[in-house]
């Protein structure tokens, strides 16, 4: 089983295949959530998801937040960054410190 997987729309993740990642084409939230569950069961270590998918499957993503694996990491899609990933970093800061002191 591959250690690193990538989920997103076709245009964004095709490149991942050339780098040796396990690539899945999925943009619909629920299906992506199920896919993440399946990958987590198969011991995938890192799952890169494009930002739109990250937001669509946010419920599943939350579930794995506090687990050590898999690490679900948002990456910008082919259309550019939507800022969702930065937002999740900021949420972390707010949760830990109580105020957004870094940005």
């Amino acid at each position, binding site marked *: 089983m591959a250690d690193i997987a990538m989920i997103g729309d076709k245009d*964004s993740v095709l490149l991942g295949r050339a780098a040796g990642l396990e*690539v899945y084409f999925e943009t619909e939230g629920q299906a992506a959530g199920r896919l993440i569950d399946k990958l987590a069961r198969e011991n995938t*270590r*890192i799952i890169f998801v494009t930002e739109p998918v990250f937001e669509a499957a946010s419920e599943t993503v939350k579930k794995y937040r506090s687990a050590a694996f898999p690490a679900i990491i948002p990456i*910008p899609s082919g259309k550019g*960054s939507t800022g969702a990933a930065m937002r999740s*970093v900021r949420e972390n800061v707010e*949760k*830990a410190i109580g105020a957004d002191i*870094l940005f």
Partner: protein
Amino acid sequence: MAISYKPTRMEMSRLKKRLSTASRGHKLMKDKRDETVRRFITFVRRNRELRERVEALMSEAMKSFVIAKATMSTPAVEEALCFPAASAKVEVGSAKVLSVEVPKLTYIPGESRGLPYGVFGTSSELDTAVSKFSELMPLLIELAEVEKTCNLLADEIEKTRRRVNALEYVMIPQLQEAIHDISMKLDENERGNLTRLMKTKDMLKAKEE
């Protein structure tokens, strides 16, 4: 008042022990919280820096890919990339940051170097896009590690902060109040006893006379 107690000396010394444990725990928790926050801040700074870099490089790679797709037909691009390169692996270790287990990831690139397709029928823009993306991989893995660490630390800080507050504002005041109550009651008993004794002595004296 959540702590129920009997006003006895035994109970009071038990509560006093609990209070000292609670205050020691509170102090330790507070130290832990402060240190975790300090570490968290360094991690989250790094996280932000990495993310900015990854996003910039990623959009560059994507741009080349878009150009590649414009110069080649979509089926040709898909065909070139449909055979996966040797799969990349990560070595997984774990490190501890203040008793929080965090992942430690080391990137092991797939064995075959170079492009997973033939140069015939593919454009050089595709090569650029692929090599740019491959260069990005170690950075992406590091980002994964740091971001996960941040997530885990943020959770831990939240938990620790709750515990500190629970000890500081609930547990310790309640114990102090209970101890105070018991000592008051014991003193009151003592005084009652004393007056009773004095009274009896007076009565006995009056009887003798």
